[in-house]
């Protein structure tokens, strides 16, 4: 005990602890001549322009009988446009050293463009073609469909994928969020070029657009390029939001058998919406419990002390109509039951005792400082500006964020822990050949 005190004293003297850095980037809000809004961070230190954007509506609004069409459509937007087939379109991107891609999440259709600023005309022209003249040729549709089916097949064998899928199906039974974003064999089989065109027309609406740009481009130039790429898109009504989610009210444990030596486990609780007043208290609580890296309680108890897992963490997830707190780990089949027990004990400890003053301070400095760590490339900065807009935040949020985190009190953390970490709403999924894990239907 004495040795420990000495160590702590030595450590305090040795390390100069300073509070998290103050941080600001200059975000400009622009409106184009055609009335499209965007955020811009002009950065002349890089010869690159990065764009991150999205439209309302994602895979959760796949039309009935066409499960997988939105994801397929997103990929096919860059598989041929205008007079170019897929090969020609890709070659032109390669020649311009531009990368353009689309993805579908449950709630949104997102896209990104990265191009050397010297080639930005070509980059925005390819973006215009992809958005307004996609071809959806039958040939490339068949190719992408076959690839997606193969990926679904293989995912059904991968323990991590099976666990994620099973978790969503269990939590969201009867709700659109339960569906696999990649679709089903039946849904994918039903997709035709005409249906893809229809789906693109439903989603690619100018009035549901959110755009962020970063890099070597000025306001006027960005406005001109945005109008050129997005200007001819129609306005309209985006797909209706899915219904509100009714969170589970009793604990469940689902076991899926797979012939692997290590079981993958996910434990999920109803989470907290992004605009909830307790959001920052929840961020702190999650950080101490199992967030960010190698300092959390779960890391310490499950990995460091007991060697029960290599990977163990927790995270907050938010969707348009739901929020989750998900903990995950992987442990030998014979030991996974013990890992689950330790995780549940940590939930209980957090619920009863909250966090310590020291943990609160550490979480504050980490959460304040870590924001800057994600700003290491044009694309990542554009991604941050884009998600801030999706979350309904204003550009000055980056300067206000530190004080919001600093305002979190011990009592706030305990309150949010009691609100979220409830055994009676815990859904557990274990994939492997776990020993001593009993399913609870």
């Amino acid at each position: 005990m004495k040795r420990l005190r000495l160590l702590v004293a030595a450590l305090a003297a040795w390390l100069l602890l300073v509070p998290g850095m103050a941080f600001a980037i200059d975000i400009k809000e622009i409106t184009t001549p055609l009335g499209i809004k965007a955020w811009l961070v002009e950065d002349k230190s890089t010869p690159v322009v990065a764009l991150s954007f999205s439209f309302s509506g994602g895979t959760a609004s796949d039309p009935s009988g066409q499960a997988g069409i939105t994801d397929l459509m997103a990929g096919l937007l860059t598989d041929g446009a205008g007079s170019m087939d897929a090969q020609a379109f890709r070659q032109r991107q390669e020649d311009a050293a531009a990368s353009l891609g689309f993805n579908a999440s449950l709630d949104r259709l997102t896209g990104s463009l990265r191009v050397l600023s010297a080639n930005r005309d070509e980059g925005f022209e390819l973006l215009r073609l992809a958005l307004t003249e996609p071809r959806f040729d039958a040939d490339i549709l068949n190719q992408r469909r076959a690839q997606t089916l193969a990926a679904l097949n293989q995912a059904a064998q991968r323990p991590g994928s099976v666990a994620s899928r099973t978790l969503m199906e269990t939590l969201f039974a009867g709700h659109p969020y339960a569906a696999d974003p990649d679709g089903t064999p039946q849904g994918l089989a039903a997709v035709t070029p005409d249906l893809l065109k229809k789906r693109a027309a439903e989603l690619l609406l100018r009035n549901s657009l959110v755009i962020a740009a970063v890099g070597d481009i000025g306001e006027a130039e960005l406005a001109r390029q945005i109008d050129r790429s997005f200007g001819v898109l129609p306005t309209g009504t985006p797909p209706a939001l899915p219904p509100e989610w009714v969170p589970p009210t009793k604990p469940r444990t689902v076991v899926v058998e797979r012939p692997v030596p290590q079981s993958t486990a996910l434990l999920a609780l109803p989470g907290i919406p992004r605009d909830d007043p307790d959001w920052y208290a929840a961020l702190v609580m999650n950080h101490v419990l199992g967030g960010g890296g190698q300092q959390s309680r779960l890391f310490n108890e499950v990995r460091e002390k007991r060697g029960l897992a290599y990977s163990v963490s927790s995270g907050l997830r938010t969707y348009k109509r739901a929020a989750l707190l998900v903990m995950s780990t992987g442990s030998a089949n014979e030991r996974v039951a013990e890992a689950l027990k330790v995780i549940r004990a940590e939930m209980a400890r957090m619920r009863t005792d909250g966090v310590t003053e020291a943990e609160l301070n550490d979480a504050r400095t980490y959460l304040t400082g870590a924001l800057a760590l994600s700003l290491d490339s044009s694309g990542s900065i554009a991604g941050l500006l884009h998600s801030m807009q999706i979350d309904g935040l204003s550009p000055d949020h980056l300067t206000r964020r530190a004080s919001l985190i600093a305002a979190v009190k011990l009592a706030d953390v305990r309150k949010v822990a009691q609100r979220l970490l409830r055994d009676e709403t815990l859904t557990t999924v274990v994939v492997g050949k776990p020993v001593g894990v009993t399913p609870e239907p």
Partner: protein
Amino acid sequence: MPLLGRRALLGGLLAGAALPPAPALAKLFSVGRRNAETFTLANGLQAIVLPSRRAPIVTQVVVYKVGSADETFGHTGAAHFLEHMMFKGTDKVPAGEFSRIVSRNGGRDNAYTTFDSTGYHQTIAAEQLELVMRMEADRMVNVHITEREIVPERQVILEERRMRTDNVPASLLDEAVREQLYGRHKPYAMPVIGYADDIRRLGVNDLLAFYRRHYAPNNAVLIVAGDTTPEKVRTLAERHYGPIARRRTEPRTRPSQGGTDLPQKVVRADARVAEPRWSRLWLAPSYRVGETKYAYALQVLARLFGGTETSRLSRVLVNERRIGLSAYASYSPSSLGLTSFDIGVHPAKSRSMTDVEDAVMAEMKKLLDGGVTAEEVERAQNQLLAAAIYSQDSLASGPRIYGTALSTGSTVADVDAWPERIAAVTADDVVAAARHVWRDDGAVTALLTPAEGSR
């Protein structure tokens, strides 16, 4: 069609290129120069500084010139096990505190082990560079390796092995393929994480011996990228790494031969495989071992033959003939020993492994007999050079590139000359390189298939 020519890209990457860059690319030119500053401390620690003002953060990486290929059979996994133990404390920093201190100061840290190197990295607010330097220097020589800490960590590593290898059929196949390709119990044949039996066997004395043999300032490279200056880094490095004594290290050796009974075919039939894969790996020269003159042409070859969806393999096997769902070729010359040139195809439904193999062989023959066009070569070069420019837009890429190069026997000058050397590759070079590597007696064919009767 507005096409950015190779020449223009080169202007962006070459310091002192013969042709001045076009005005529009002046910025490219300055970014291309990058201002990597290097110096070496009296104790032999080599330092590289990559300043960038974009965000008020810095990344420190210390790379040791030791990896799993420096282990012997029976002690596999030592380099990686030691990497884990480096977080178990010194007199000044208690076990587990290294990462907590980084975190409570708003930073992130981690570490990695490869065949040829072991790296430790932190990204943190610029004014905390001294903090992470002090701690990294401290654990270069003062780490505690105790039985108490080893016992649970061994279980952690076995779980890591289950997660990365035993749970993943493709990884298990890869282990078996490497044994054939490089020769059983030889460097690169044994897995980085180690065999499970060895992980269970490694103890305090093994890890301490490995630590003392390989961790020294003269066997390490310090790389700092981000919001700092070479002067500042030099001052701090002198202060914290400077006092650490040099140690005698043995030269690293790697075999110049691979497996002795090639060609081989390795099959893994596994109930956990839903989609089969055909692949073939050829022993290939790296920047350091074998016919190293082909190292640049092989990068161009991999790119134009199977590097993108417009490459030959993708165009013919996937797009036109529908034999494969996807196809790739890959080659990395950054190795202290031999490396491999890999080709792989996921067969389309109802296509056999033989169909795929025949089609790949036909494309290889076509390339060897008919050559490649100057346009194909230029496109591939263009893509490689563009990737190099984009890598300078990210704080993580620079340290990764220099760290890999310097731990595999290359120099800063090699890294800086890379664009020029890639650009100098001709169509004839590409064919000559392919002819050199695609030999029957230097290959292993690897088949990943669903278990018998499971499909």
